[in-house]
């Protein structure tokens, strides 16, 4: 496959759970992880005679999103019913917005690998309710239905097919994630399904009309998204190059196995019979409502990135990574405020901490090392209590829950030796133990002495079991040897 022969066309549909306390149409809790069906009230269960009333916070969050992506906000929006039968859909229809979504056309700018800025258009975003979950564990040949999630507010964000590579799609997804978490309208927790990406993919020869697209559903990590796109692009190009045709279908990606399969069941009788929901009235908002939200909008990733570069002198890359994600940004700023060393905090957050979070597959908000703890650790590096290498050991121990950094340094005896007399004594010992090498040093050519110096420093560090301050050792060795000349 020669990538340049084919143009990849990608559009996204993103289901974003809104971080409200209660459901979109009922007063049941939206908290994650409760016992099955304990957060499904009569409305969520579609008990006969129950009726929906719209949650004001869900509306507010949707409008905030619209403002943040430069979109037109509908002064009048309305809910429709989308009819289909599925056991996790209690009413037999999903309450959603088809004709009059709350958020109209807008856009998000992403940064491409070459540094250029690309604009991805948002077609619209609409409010809707989430469905429950079918648990596929076997209950004597039956499936279990948990309706706790039913009625959780969502905005479904639909883009235009403006992305041309998996990288662009992932860059967009990350940017979107940064925006919704910065707005505080979504916890961004992809592993718990707070953001779920459906990817529409087609390929074509450059200049030709759009090819037939497929939809790969429910990708819940950036990594899976990237791999699922690569897989599907490869499949489509393979089919086309073999003279085949792409069938419009829904595909399900299995991240663990890195395979995807067609969901044929979704293709049957795809007639959703949308019509205006008679239980809900048109939602009207005025200019003042929109303007008040615009005025109180929290800082967004682009603005934060600029501020980080200015305020903390971060590189463009660092500012992008740390400013792009609300959780990272908060962590970074909290730690920096405490220890005062932005550069070190940035390095640690993007280095050790990110690696740990990735490994554990958890969100930075659930980090086992708090910003305060990291700030304490950095303070110990800055005041030379420990070396950078030692700090990594201490961080490891902090992550494992062994306590705060001072306690770990103390119990493990990792404290760096910076006492001048102690170091002088160590250096004297090494000089005394290495008479032959000293003699060689004195007789050596000046140009070779710098190299030879390293040997003595190494011996001192070894003698101190690594705890001596390396810079001080270096200086002391140099001074003492100079004195022998």
């Amino acid at each position, binding site marked *: 496959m020669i990538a340049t022969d084919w143009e990849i066309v990608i559009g996204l549909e993103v289901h974003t759970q809104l971080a409200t306390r209660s459901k979109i149409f009922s007063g049941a809790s939206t908290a994650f992880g409760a016992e099955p069906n304990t957060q499904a009230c009569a409305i969520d*269960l579609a*008990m*006969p005679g129950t*009726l929906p009333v719209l949650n004001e916070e869900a509306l507010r969050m949707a409008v905030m999103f619209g403002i943040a992506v430069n979109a037109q906000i509908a002064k009048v929006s309305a809910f429709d*019913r989308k009819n289909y*039968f599925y*056991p996790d859909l*209690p*009413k037999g229809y999903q309450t959603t917005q088809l004709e009059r979504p709350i958020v109209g056309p807008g856009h998000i700018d992403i940064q491409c690998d070459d540094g250029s800025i690309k604009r991805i258009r948002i077609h619209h975003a609409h409010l809707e309710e989430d469905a429950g979950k079918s648990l596929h564990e076997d209950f004597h040949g039956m499936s279990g239905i948990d309706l706790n999630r039913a009625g959780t507010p969502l905005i479904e964000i639909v883009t235009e097919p403006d992305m041309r590579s998996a990288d662009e799609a992932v860059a967009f997804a990350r940017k979107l994630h940064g925006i919704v978490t910065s707005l505080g309208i979504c916890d961004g927790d992809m592993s718990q399904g707070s953001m779920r990406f459906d990817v529409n993919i087609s390929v074509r020869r450059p200049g030709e009309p759009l090819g037939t697209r497929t939809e790969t559903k429910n990708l819940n990590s950036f990594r899976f998204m990237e791999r699922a796109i690569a897989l599907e692009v490869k499949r489509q190009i393979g089919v086309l190059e073999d003279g085949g045709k792409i069938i419009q279908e829904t595909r399900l990606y299995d991240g663990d196995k890195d395979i995807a399969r067609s969901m044929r069941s979704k293709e049957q009788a795809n007639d959703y019979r949308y019509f205006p929901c008679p*239980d809900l009235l048109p939602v009207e908002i005025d200019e003042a409502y929109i303007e008040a939200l615009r005025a109180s909008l929290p800082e967004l990733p682009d603005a934060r990135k600029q501020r980080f570069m200015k305020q903390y002198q971060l590189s463009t890359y660092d500012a992008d990574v740390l400013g792009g994600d609300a959780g990272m940004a908060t962590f970074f700023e909290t730690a920096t405020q405490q220890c005062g060393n932005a550069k070190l905090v940035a390095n640690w957050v993007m280095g050790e901490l990110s690696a740990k979070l990735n490994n554990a597959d958890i969100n930075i908000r659930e980090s086992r090392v708090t910003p305060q703890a990291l700030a304490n650790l950095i303070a110990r590096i800055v005041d030379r209590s420990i070396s950078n290498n030692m700090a990594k050991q201490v961080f490891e121990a902090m992550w494992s829950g062994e306590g705060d950094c001072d306690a770990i340094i103390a119990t493990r005896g990792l404290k760096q030796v910076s006492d001048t007399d102690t170091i002088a004594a160590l250096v004297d010992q090494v000089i005394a133990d290495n008479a032959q090498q000293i003699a060689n040093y004195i007789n050596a050519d000046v140009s070779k002495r710098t190299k030879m110096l390293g040997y003595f420093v190494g011996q001192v560090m070894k003698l101190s079991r690594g705890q001596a301050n390396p810079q001080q050792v270096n200086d002391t060795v140099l001074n003492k040897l100079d004195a022998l000349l």
Partner: protein
Amino acid sequence: MHNLTLTELSVGLANKDFSSVELAKFFLERIATLDERYNSFITVTPELALQQAQAADRRRAAGAAPALCGVPVVHKDIFCTQGVRTSCGSKMLDNFIPPYDATVVANFVAAGAVVLGKSNMDEFAMGSSNETSYYGPVKNPWDTSCVPGGSSGGSAAAVAARLTPAATATDTGGSIRQPAALCGITGLKPTYGRVSRWGMIAFASSLDQAGPMARNAQDAALLLNVMAGFDPKDSTSVDREVPDYTAGINSSLTGLTVGLPREYFDAGLNPGTERALRDAVAELQKQGVIVKDISLPHSALSVPAYYVIAPAEASANLSRFDGVRYGYRCADPIDLRDMYMRSRAEGFGDEVKRRILVGAYCLSAGYYDAYYKKAQQVRRLIKQDFVAAFNDVDVIIGPTCPNPAFAFGAKGNNPVAMYLEDIYTIATNLAGLPGMSIPCGLVDDKPVGLQIIGNYFDEGRMLNIAHRLQQVTDWHTRTAPGLN
């Protein structure tokens, strides 16, 4: 005792002429003896009734009690009642005991009323004859070979047979007014949004409205006082003050303008019904009412528009009956699809299935614009007709339905003929207007009804007209033969 009106019973309780427990026992006994003839109840609740009656007697003894404290009522089996089976006339919900009360039911509980039971009805309120009930047809107390009308046929028959002084009912296309007319009682469908729909099992959400059935306008006013009101749990409920509907009920009618729509006095109207109507209008004229000829030009389109909109909404509203969380599930489903297909095929009756299919058709790809959207446009035209008419007149008067009660099976295999029974009542549901039916005569020894259509939230004036008419006529005091 059974011939006393709700108002008289309320006074009797206040005067300690009898206790609420005595009243409840009396009516329960009457139901036990007589309802075999009418089948107007799906569930009778003697234990609940006696318990509520005892509580009401204690409340009365403790001091000031509301007007309806201790009086018996019956709820249409479409209203959810906590702990009492609520079937909606369907096999689908034959085993359904709601863990919550409808707002209407809760309002009656708060008022201290005593629930005798749940009345029979067309399945999911789809029908005009009560023949579609899973629990068998209700018989018209005036002639048990005839239908009581529907869908609130059980409530209407129970009131007409004096098995209860009052009942709740619902009206989507005439389901309060048409059975009220056919059973010779007073029924009122309020303005859409006046009474909460919470806990009332939905047929067509934008048309459904609950209202009272009683012996006369005075009693209907008392009931509406309890039923009406804003409910934050219903998005379509209107936040608007509830007047005391009994307050202005006896006001003078002088100078009031009544419109008679010429489309309602058409060839389809039974000449006997028309005569009765004209007589009633003449009585009103004697009281100083000015009568005007008006036109509602889109009237003929109301039945076609209704039979798109109502089935479309119903097709979605009834999707929740899927055998998963409550209600009927077929035996031994072989797979998920089979569970859906058979639970719904076995749990729903023919008329309900027919309307679900029609609704699905009108909403399906390629037909939406020609049917659903078109019907919604016609709906606006129908509303505009009324808005224009109410610029000229205070209320509109016409027949409730073309004919008196018809025999069982008379329209059995012809759904369209049945649908046309509602030709004069459907338009007000489409427009969201209040409508009321009061008895105005007998045709072939069976009652016929006069319909009063009011402007939005003008129930007080409708009750005023009905009451004044009932002060000078006695149709509302007539009882079915053999009852006394």
